[in-house]
């Protein structure tokens, strides 16, 4: 009997758990450790943030799903990993602390044969003074954050209905943020809501981000064929902002968020401020702070984890300049180079470097997006890792055989720009590969046949359909495997 332990029950963790359970016989055990009692379809949190959906529309209880799937569920957070065991025992284990009401605060050592780290990010609001829902800005990273953001957005709308002018600031709250796409979706859903409520003329809607230009999205943007030209995503992104009357600030590193004012530094090194009445600013991400210890109890955290707290895998972490970057730097199997029974997927793995070209301002502050690794790619890498581990447990392979490099993987992304079945819109994007390969595709770094983008109502229909399809899949309902990652 073998035991697979999965840390985290988000999109990557849930995907890995369901696929592994399907591939492994019931003599083997699959355990999921997650501090949450509910699963959350995070992409739809933006709709909670504008009042179109409620928390219960984007979440469901995990316990019944794991029970019917034959997966052991421990509602707890992981504290540390002992990959070599402890003392005279060489069986590796993870120390967890329960978060469930019945066992809150109780710690336990959970042994494993294989470990998948899919803990996702820590929302690092502390990186910027005054940032976050407990301080001076709002967020849509969790359903409760999004609910709170909507509450304050509605207050702003009520003020506008009374004739007050309001400035709504949306974007990223630090120079190293990722997930610009989520903030992008939020600002356009807010703008749509303002038009629906007939208060658009009372609102100054403003974007702020650490992107070098609009349309970067942490991937250096993308080039598409359109109207006889090869154009950068900056062109259609700026077009959408101009069409909707949204001004933008880019190349910005927010330094302090006050009640109604944001101080930020630009890539030129200038210090500026912007005033607002409502601010939704995403935090930067870091690892969740897992520690690691060797057999004699020495701290080996730097062996397993990068300084950012994300887990090192089979990537090339040699420091390189942008010109030296290669698609081969990116991991293929997500296996720890030191402990071969440990894997990290989704946001939890440490990327070798950014995708967008790094830029530093004269004061030495890096201002560029870190690479996104959520959604579809996260699910694909989780599935491949689950299959590899199942093969190794079942004796079909001695090492991982399936690969899921972002440099040879495509992605489809639907970014909502107004939610309505008759007059809503969304940006539908596909790209291949995610990591640009300028040797193979010298023209634009990506295959222009597979890299596309368009805006329209169809995108909203797809986004809406995906909401239900992915929740259906995550609930492990019949034929869940038909829904692709």
């Amino acid at each position, binding site marked *: 009997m073998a035991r697979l332990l999965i840390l985290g029950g988000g999109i990557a963790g849930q995907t890995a758990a369901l696929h592994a359970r399907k591939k492994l016989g019931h003599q083997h055990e699959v355990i999921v450790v997650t501090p949450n009692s509910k699963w959350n379809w995070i992409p739809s949190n933006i709709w909670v943030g504008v009042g179109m959906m409620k928390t219960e529309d984007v979440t469901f209880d995990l316990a019944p799903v794991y029970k019917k799937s034959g997966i052991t569920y421990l509602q707890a957070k992981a504290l540390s990993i002992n990959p070599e065991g402890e003392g005279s025992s060489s069986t590796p284990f993870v120390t967890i602390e329960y978060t469930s009401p019945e066992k809150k605060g109780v710690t336990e050592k959970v042994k494993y044969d294989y470990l998948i780290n899919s803990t996702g990010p820590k929302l690092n609001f502390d990186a910027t003074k005054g940032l976050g829902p407990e301080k001076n800005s709002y967020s849509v990273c969790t359903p409760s954050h999004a609910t709170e953001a909507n509450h304050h957005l509605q207050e702003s709308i009520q003020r506008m209905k009374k004739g007050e002018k309001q400035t709504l600031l949306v974007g990223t709250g630090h120079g190293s943020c990722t997930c610009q796409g989520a903030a992008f979706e939020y600002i356009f859903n807010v703008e749509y809501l303002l038009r629906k409520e007939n208060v658009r003329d009372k609102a100054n809607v403003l974007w702020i981000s650490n992107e070098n230009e609009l349309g970067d999205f942490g991937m250096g943007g993308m080039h598409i064929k359109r109207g006889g030209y090869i154009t950068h995503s900056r062109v259609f992104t*700026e077009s959408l902002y*101009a069409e909707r*009357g949204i001004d933008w600030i880019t190349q910005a590193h927010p330094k302090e968020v006050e009640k109604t004012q944001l101080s930020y530094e630009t890539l030129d090194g200038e210090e500026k401020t912007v005033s607002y009445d409502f601010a939704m600013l995403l935090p930067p991400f870091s690892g969740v702070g897992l520690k690691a210890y060797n057999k004699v109890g020495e701290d080996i955290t730097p062996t397993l984890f990068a300084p950012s707290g994300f887990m090192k895998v089979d990537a090339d972490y040699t420091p390189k300049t942008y010109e030296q970057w290669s698609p081969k730097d990116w991991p293929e199997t997500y296996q720890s180079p030191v402990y071969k029974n440990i894997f990290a997927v989704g946001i939890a793995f440490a990327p070798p470097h950014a995708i967008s070209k790094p830029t530093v301002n004269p004061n030495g502050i890096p201002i560029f997006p870190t690479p996104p690794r959520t959604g579809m790619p996260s699910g694909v890498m989780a599935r491949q890792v689950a299959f590899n581990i199942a093969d190794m447990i079942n004796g079909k392979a001695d090492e991982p055989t399936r690969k899921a490099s972002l440099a040879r*993987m495509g992605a489809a992304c639907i970014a909502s720009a107004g939610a309505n079945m008759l007059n809503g*819109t969304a940006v539908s994007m596909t790209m291949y590969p995610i990591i640009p390969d300028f040797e193979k595709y010298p023209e634009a770094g990506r295959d222009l046949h597979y890299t596309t983008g*368009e805006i329209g*109502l169809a995108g909203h229909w797809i986004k809406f359909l995906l909401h239900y399809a992915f929740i259906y899949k995550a609930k492990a309902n019949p034929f869940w495997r038909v829904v*692709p990652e």
Partner: protein
Amino acid sequence: MIVRNPFGQNYYAAVPTKLTRSLRVNLIWQLFRFLVINIKMLRMVRKH
């Protein structure tokens, strides 16, 4: 109606024509695009 401020941010941006904007929410055209986008996405899924 887009107000273009000379030398402002949106002055240089490409903006959609009335036809483009109407096609974006035209049910028949969007039904067709729905099929096309889904095929594109499925092709992408099949690549890995």
